[in-house]
C-alpha cells in the first residue's frame, strides 16, 4: 500500500523535564534508534491518537542528536494538554521534519545575533547550540532573550551556562520582575542599546509573538543589518505541514514549506506576514 504523508511514525517519550508552570521539555526517540535528521528551525507534526496533531519546532541541535530530539512544549489546548499529562515511555506520533530552517552554511564566518522572545527560544535553541558546538566557525555570538516574568524563563541551566561563557555575549530581561530578580527589567528591545554590531558582518535571528518581533525587527534594521541577513521564524495554523491544506498561507507563501524561517527581505512586502 502506498505511503501516506499524513501518517506519523511512532516515537517514544524517552524523558520529560518540567521547565516552567506551562512548559515541559520532551525528549523523543524512534524505537529503531534512527535519527530525525533535521535542520535547526524545522518543525515536526506531533500526534496524539484520537486527540489531534500540533506543529512543534525542534528545539535540540542536530549536533547533539544521539538518536533523540527535544521538543519544548507549552500547554495550550487539546493536544498539548494531553501531552503534558503523559509519562516517560508513552508513545506519540511524529511526522516530519518539515519546512525550511535556518541556512547555517550562510551564517558561518559571521557574527550571529539571536533575539528570541518567550517560547521563541524553543526553535532558536536548536541553532544556538549548533553554533556553540561549532563555535570556531562563527564570529561573535550575541544572545538577547526576553520573557514576561522570571518564572517563565526557559532552559535556565543553559542560560546560566551561556552567561558564564566569555565567548557569548548574553543579555536577558523580563517585562516584570519579582523579589528574587536582580537583572534587567523591560521589554526585549531595551537590550539592543547594550550591544554594538558590525552590521554587514552580522546575521540576526528572531522568533516570538508578533507584537514582539515587529519591534525587534525594527531594532535590527536600525542597527543597519541587511534585510537579507535577518531571519525570523513564523507561526501559523498548520494542518498538513506539506503545502496542501492551505491553513498556513501567508498571502502567496506557505509557512510550512517556504517557511517557517524567512528572511526579512522575503516577507517585508508580504502584508500578512508582519
Amino acid at each position, binding site marked *: *500500500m*502506498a*505511503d*501516506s*504523508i*499524513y*501518517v*506519523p511514525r*511512532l516515537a517514544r517519550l524517552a524523558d520529560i523535564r518540567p521547565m516552567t508552570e506551562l512548559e515541559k521539555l520532551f525528549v523523543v526517540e524512534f524505537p529503531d534508534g534512527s535519527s530525525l535528521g533535521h535542520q535547526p528551525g524545522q518543525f515536526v507534526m506531533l*500526534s*496524539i*491518537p*484520537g*486527540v*489531534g*496533531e*500540533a506543529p512543534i519546532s525542534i528545539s535540540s541541535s542536530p549536533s547533539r542528536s544521539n538518536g533523540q530530539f527535544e521538543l519544548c512544549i507549552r500547554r*495550550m*489546548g487539546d493536544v*498539548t494538554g494531553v501531552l503534558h499529562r503523559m509519562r516517560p515511555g*508513552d*508513545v506519540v*506520533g511524529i511526522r516530519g521534519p518539515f519546512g525550511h530552517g535556518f541556512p547555517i552554511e550562510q551564517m558561518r564566518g559571521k557574527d550571529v545575533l539571536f533575539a528570541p522572545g518567550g517560547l521563541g527560544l524553543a526553535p532558536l535553541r536548536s541553532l544556538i547550540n549548533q553554533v556553540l558546538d561549532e563555535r570556531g566557525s562563527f564570529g561573535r555570538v550575541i544572545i538577547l532573550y526576553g520573557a514576561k516574568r522570571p518564572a517563565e524563563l526557559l532552559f535556565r541551566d543553559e542560560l546560566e551556562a551561556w552567561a558564564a561563557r566569555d565567548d557569548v555575549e548574553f543579555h536577558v530581561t523580563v517585562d516584570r520582575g519579582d523579589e528574587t530578580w536582580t537583572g534587567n527589567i523591560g521589554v526585549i528591545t531595551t537590550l539592543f542599546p547594550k550591544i554594538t554590531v558590525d552590521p554587514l558582518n552580522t546575521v540576526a535571528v528572531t522568533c516570538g*509573538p*508578533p507584537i514582539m518581533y515587529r519591534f525587534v525587527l525594527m531594532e535590527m534594521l536600525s542597527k543597519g543589518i541587511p534585510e537579507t541577513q535577518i531571519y525570523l521564524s513564523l*507561526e*501559523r*495554523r498548520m*494542518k*498538513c505541514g*506539506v*503545502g*496542501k*491544506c*492551505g*491553513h498556513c*498561507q*501567508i*498571502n*502567496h507563501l506557505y509557512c510550512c*514549506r517556504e517557511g517557517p524561517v524567512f528572511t526579512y527581505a522575503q516577507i517585508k512586502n508580504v*502584508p*500578512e506576514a508582519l
Partner: protein
Amino acid sequence: MRLWVLPKEQVVDMVCRLMADYRVWGPQAKGPQFAFEPLPDPTAIRLDYNISILSPKVALQPPQERIAVFHLDGGFTVEPVIDAEPTVIFGIHTCDLHALALLDKAFSADFPDAHYLERRQQTLLVSLECLQPCDEHSFCKSMGTWTADSGYDLHLMDLGDAYGVSVGTAAGEALLTQYAQARPATDTEAQQLHEARDAKRLRFPNRLNFDAAELPSLLATAYDHPIWAELGDRCLSCGACTNVCPTCYCFNVIDSPELSLKEAVRWRRWDSCQLDEFARVASGENFREARAARQRHRMFRKGKWLYERFGELGCVGCGRCIRACLTHINIVDTFNAIHASQHRR
C-alpha cells in the same frame, strides 16, 4: 486523434457494462438540480444536465474521508487508509475537467498525496462538450475552459442522434472498444464535429471585460482596493462559495476516537478559507480576521497565487460560487470592477 461515433441510445448500455467493472459517477437529477454521484443504475445518468451542484471533484476529494486509523491497545499502531477503486467519471463538463487538472497538480506537487493520487490513478475521465452555456453565471469562455483538447480519456460531443467521441488516451480507447459499440467516424461526421464546435463560439459570451491572462498582473495592483471592504461587509462567512468550487481543495485534519475507544480515526474534511478560525492559532491570534481579508484571499488564490504556483488560473469560470452566494458576491463583477477602476486611473 481518432474520432468515433456512439449512438445516443447506447450510452445507457455502455454505462451498464462499465458498472460491472467500475464505480461510475455521473450527473443525476436532484430535485430541480443536478448532482454528481455514483450512479445507482445506468438509466439515472442525465447527460443533458446544465450544471451540478458540486463538481465531480467529490469523486476524487470527498467532503470527508478517513486517511488513517490508529489502533489503541496499550500503546498504539497506525496505518493509512487509502480508499481507491476503479472508477469512471462520466459526463464531466470541460470547466470541471480543467479544474481536475489543477487538483492533479496540487496533489502531486512537492509531497505527493497518495489518498488523492491513488484514486486518481484508478479513475478514467469521460468529459462532455457543452453546446450552450449553463446559465447567465458561467464564464467558461472568458477563462478558456469552455472546451478541452486534452485532460480526458474520452470526450463526448453531442451530434444530435449520437455522440462524437474523441479519444484522449489509450485507456480511453480501450474503454470505448471494450464497453461500447462505437464505430469510427466518417469524414462527414468528423467535419460535422468541427463545425459544431466552431458554431458554439458565438453562443458563449465573454463575461470578463478583459483577457483572463491579465488577472495575475491586475490583482498585483489591487491588494488595497476598496472593493475588498465592500465584499467583507456583505459576506456571511458561510463557506458555500468554497464548498461548491471545483478548484478549492483546502482541508482540515481532525482526529477523533471511535466509540469503542479501541480505534481513533484521522479524518480529512473540506475546509474553507472564508471561515473565521481558518487562520487562527492556539494563542488566539487570527492572521486573517477581517472578512474583507478572507474574500481577498479567495479571489487572489483564484486569480493570481495558484497561477504563480501551478501555471493555471485557480478559477475555471463555472459560476458555482456566484449561484451559491446568498449575498450575491460575484467573482466576475469583482474582477471587472477592479479592471474598470484601474483603467480609469
